[in-house]
């Protein structure tokens, strides 16, 4: 009994990984019952040392095999070079599964016992039934990891900047509340506390959530901050996303009331402010900024009170983007123009969309207007729809400024009659009639065509 007490005491004090008790267990299984405590603990220490030795040797094989995980084959090779017979029967492909045995009721103090299940294999069945599937042989693919120092964004490469741009990671989530919570979580991870606070304050002072009242001075201050403050770069992805989502929500609800119109106005103001801020590097987010701008511009049913103002400011934002970035992205202007032309000319579009497209074209520039109104016959398509006419004249004014003292075309004159005829051909009756009253303008417009 005294030995028993000693055992517990010794095992408590010696803190090696391999316990003296384990040595005693092994000794008992070999028929040695009276192993002295000192011997057992010394043996335990020694066993631990030898195990470390083998593992150190095995880790060399692991390292040279360019792996990070030690496998049973590494241990085998280590044993072989240490001139010890390897442990047969273990392979990296069939890992031993340890199962826990049922508790042993007679001896409560016994710890949990684990064992390796040794399945019985019926050779006949194996030979008859199981077909070995050859693993596919090794193959290779090549891709560009970097082209002149820039990593191309292709599926073979990992997605770029995963932590700076969370909007890229979850583009397809539909539920907006889920998105919001996700966004919040990401904000927490990446941004400093100050920036998080700033973001929260900024968004609530620009667009108070729920039914809070807007303090116009606060909003003005917030927009001014967006327009001029440096150091907002880390917030940019979130702000862009916030604007985009806000726009989509408002437009999606389709309410024609005053409040939603005002909201859209404010959101456009935010975009304008971001574009104006010279310290921001906005180019990577252009593809996210453009959709809300174009949506507002081309949406068919904007709140009537605000629609003109909304479309005008969206067009000016678009114009700003194009003037700033079309030099770096030569394909930007043609692409936007294509979208606008489609909106202008497609037969099933409403007047609102057409109007927006026209305003957009005005924003894009003279060339776009020429293409839209004259070449593609946009003016004809618009016809005399109310509200649109003003925009068309604006567009025509872009092509050629109207004269201050209009002199009407002399329809008796042959040349002038021809001009009037062509105007009718290109612009349709409604606009042609109006242009006839200003000879200079009409000529100028025609020269452009």
């Amino acid at each position, binding site marked *: 009994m005294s030995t028993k007490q000693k055992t517990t005491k010794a095992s408590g004090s010696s803190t090696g990984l391999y316990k003296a008790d384990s040595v005693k267990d092994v000794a008992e299984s070999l028929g040695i019952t009276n192993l002295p405590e000192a011997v057992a603990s010394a043996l335990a220490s020694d066993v631990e040392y030898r195990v470390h030795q083998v593992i150190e040797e095995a880790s060399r094989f692991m390292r040279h*095999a*360019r792996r990070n995980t030690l496998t049973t084959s590494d241990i085998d*090779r280590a044993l072989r070079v240490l001139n010890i017979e390897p442990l047969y029967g273990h392979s990296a492909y069939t890992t031993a599964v340890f199962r826990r045995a049922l508790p042993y009721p007679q001896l409560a103090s016994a710890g949990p016992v684990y064992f390796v299940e040794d399945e019985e294999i019926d050779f006949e069945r194996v030979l008859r039934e199981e077909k070995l599937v050859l693993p596919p042989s*090794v*193959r290779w693919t090549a*891709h560009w990891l*970097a082209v002149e120092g820039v990593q191309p964004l292709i599926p073979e490469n*990992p997605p770029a900047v995963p932590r700076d741009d969370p909007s890229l990671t979850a583009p397809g989530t539909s539920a907006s509340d889920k998105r919001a919570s996700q966004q919040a979580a990401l904000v927490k991870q990446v941004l400093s506390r100050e920036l998080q606070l700033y973001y929260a304050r900024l968004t609530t002072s620009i667009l108070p959530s729920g039914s809070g009242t807007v303090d116009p001075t606060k909003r003005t201050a917030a927009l001014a901050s967006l327009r001029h403050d440096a150091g907002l770069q880390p917030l940019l992805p979130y702000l862009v996303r916030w604007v985009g989502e806000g726009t989509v929500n408002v437009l999606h609800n389709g309410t024609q009331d005053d409040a939603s119109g005002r909201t859209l106005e404010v959101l456009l103001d935010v975009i304008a402010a971001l574009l104006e801020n010279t310290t921001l590097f906005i180019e*990577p987010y252009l593809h996210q900024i453009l959709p809300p701008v174009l949506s507002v511009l081309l949406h068919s049913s904007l709140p009537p009170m605000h629609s003109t103002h909304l479309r005008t400011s969206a067009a000016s934002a678009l114009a700003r983007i194009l003037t700033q970035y079309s030099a770096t992205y030569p394909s930007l202007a043609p692409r936007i123009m294509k979208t606008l032309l489609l909106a202008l000319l497609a037969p099933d579009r409403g007047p609102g969309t057409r109007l927006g497209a026209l305003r957009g074209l005005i924003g894009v520039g003279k060339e776009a207007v020429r293409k839209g109104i004259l070449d593609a016959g946009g003016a004809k398509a618009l016809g005399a729809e109310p509200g649109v006419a003003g925009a068309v004249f604006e567009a025509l004014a872009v092509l050629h400024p109207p004269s201050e003292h209009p002199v009407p075309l002399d329809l008796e004159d042959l040349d002038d009659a021809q001009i009037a005829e062509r105007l009718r051909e290109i612009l349709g009756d409604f606009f042609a009639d109006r242009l006839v009253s200003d000879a200079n303008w009409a000529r100028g417009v025609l020269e452009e065509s």
Partner: protein
Amino acid sequence: MSAATPTASTPDASTPAPPSTEASQGTLAADRLVLEYLRARGHKAAEQTLTETISSFEDKGKSPITISGEELVKRLTVFAEKPAQPGENTLKTTLGVQKELASAVNSSNLQNLIASIGPVGAEEILSLDPNDKQEGFRELESWVEGSLDIYRPEFRPIIFPIFCHFYLDLVQFGFKDAAQEFFETFSPSLEPLHSTTIHRLSTLRLPSHIQSDETAQRFRNEKYTIQMSRSGFALLLGWLTEGVGGEAPGLGDGFFGEKGRRGRAAVMRVVNNHLRFDVATTTASKSFTSWEDNTGLLSSLIPQSNGTSTPFTNPQAFNDAVGELKLGPAPISDELRAETGKSLREQSMVDRDLAGQYDNHLVRPTAIAGIISPTIADLLPHPPSFKAVDVRREVEKVRDARKRIRLDPSAHSSADGNTPQGAAARQRSLPSICAYTLYDTHEGSPCCTFSQDTSLMAAGFEESYIRLWNLKGEPLNGLQSEFQLNNIRDTSSLNSLREKGGSPTRKLIGHSGPVYSLAFDPVSGSAAPPKYLLSGSADGTARLWSMDTMTNVVAYRGHQNPVWDVDWSPMSIYFTTASRDRTARLWSTDRTSTLRIYAGHSSDVDCVRFHPNSLYIATGSSDWTARLWDVQRGTSVRVFIGHQGIVSTLAFSPDGRYLATAGEDLAINLWDLGSGRRVKKMTGHTASVYSLAFSAESSMLVSGGADWAVRCWDVKGAGGPPEVSRTNGTVSGSGSHHSKDPGPDVIETTDLLATFPTKRTPIVTVHFTPRNLCLVAGPYLSTTPR
């Protein structure tokens, strides 16, 4: 009784395992037999020498360091009996002794006890109180931390060796639990810098382990070198003797008093016996890595040349003593140069390429000022005449040099990414990298290599085979195995013997262990596909494979242990292997026996590379050092100490001036071969570095490793840790610079130009084509477990 065997302290000991206690007893018995035999035969002189040797061995065995635990207990029992109950044998266990000693030390008859001990030495007995060690070490730590800021970096390196010796002392004298406690108390603070050694020490638990363990023996038998300024050394001495200086926060009676004195005495003993101080007269401004170069158990790592009587104590002294190396480009014979020039002129006439007329100067290797170029006589023996393939290779070399993509990393740092000009400069400075990803490799792929002309790729696998791919998709056809020799008259008849309709991939089977290294022969350069492939494997052989017949031609046996690495000489007749048996060897392809053995590393030689001019080879070893060897003389000519882990891979710069080594300490070191000094240390990898490659102009280094990323480094840049962490407000440069979150302790040095992560591909090989396109390869690790 365990008679201690003094293990061989010569650095060139190549026995893999130190003899165990039993073995030494065996040798003693054998000695006796030999003595008797000599006596019987009447060889007086021989007998006498042998007796002297044996007795000197036995003297050493009696030294207190190698006393066995049991013997000690016995000795102690004798003295401890006096105050305790005499005659009772309760002092068997170490715990008992410890308790007894502790009580004895505090008792008043301590002085009597010490006096009665007499000849054995009071110091030794006192050193056995484990509390002294704890106390002494704690005081040392607090003294170092309390010292002045300017001295603290100098003093810090002292802590580690003293920790090791205290721990080893405790284990050796059998205080297992005290050793454990000591270890647990103090190891955490040392863990970050010395984790490998500390882990190794933690596995030692019995006195016999210390006898057999290599690391422990090195600590015991070698002096640990520490750099210190004169004034710093004086301060240390002052503290050790008088306990002055520094502050002891919260220690009550400070450094004075009995306990403190005994603790210091214990430190002093280690300092006297096991440390060696390199006292410098001036306090040079120390960089953040300088301590790595000159601190540690250096004596066995530095090769000792025969000529000098005094052993070198620091690597710099050795490197300086060897003298200058011939690092210039290898010369080419006049005939070959003339022929190459002629061929180039003809080519340019055909192509109507006027620029080609002026390429002639490129044939001549350009010498760099301040570097000695070897002459033809210096080169390894090679055939006197050259072949057509040599001309084609040289011609292709010139064309490559002309068409090369210029990589100029120095433009990178100055270029501003936001302006168009800056962006263009950045593009010029960084390489294009093509990644070859292997799929369905079950155990990963230990090695992978590209031929110089990028027509072939070979990968070695753990399943003992090599797979060869033709990257152009052409079939790889060997020769038919049965044919009549006299039917072959010319190349066309030989070609008719080729196998028909092969696939562009082929399996080469022959090894009986994992294939760890592969190399294509460089003789045809980028002009033609290579003729041979070399492989090294865990079965201890290197094998030569013919790319004509697609069969194994020769197996080179010689290493008894796994061959970790192989590399061709640039002249392709010779090759070298590195093995677990601690040697690197030189072979020529036409002989199956070794030509030279490069022995001297005290652990595995993990990697080996030929210098571009073929006069030297560099080896990296598990003893944390890299060496440069003279190929012909077989002697070590440079030693590079500074890695804090195993040197896993290395690369020479093509201009022959620099060596880059990467280690398990996740650092890449750049060494200047001429002076043997470290140029800089580049950090940024977050896992082991597997492969390094220089661009053709030696201006850029590319590395790939287990962190699934390829990194580009500016060789010429100053490097060093970044001044301030990146500011929060701006996106860093262009889109190219997005690293994975590095661990908090990995500092990216400023010469890291770019990081290109892959999805899940550890980069096993990085390779620059002669025209500076970078190829990398690695096995994709599937996310699903087996």
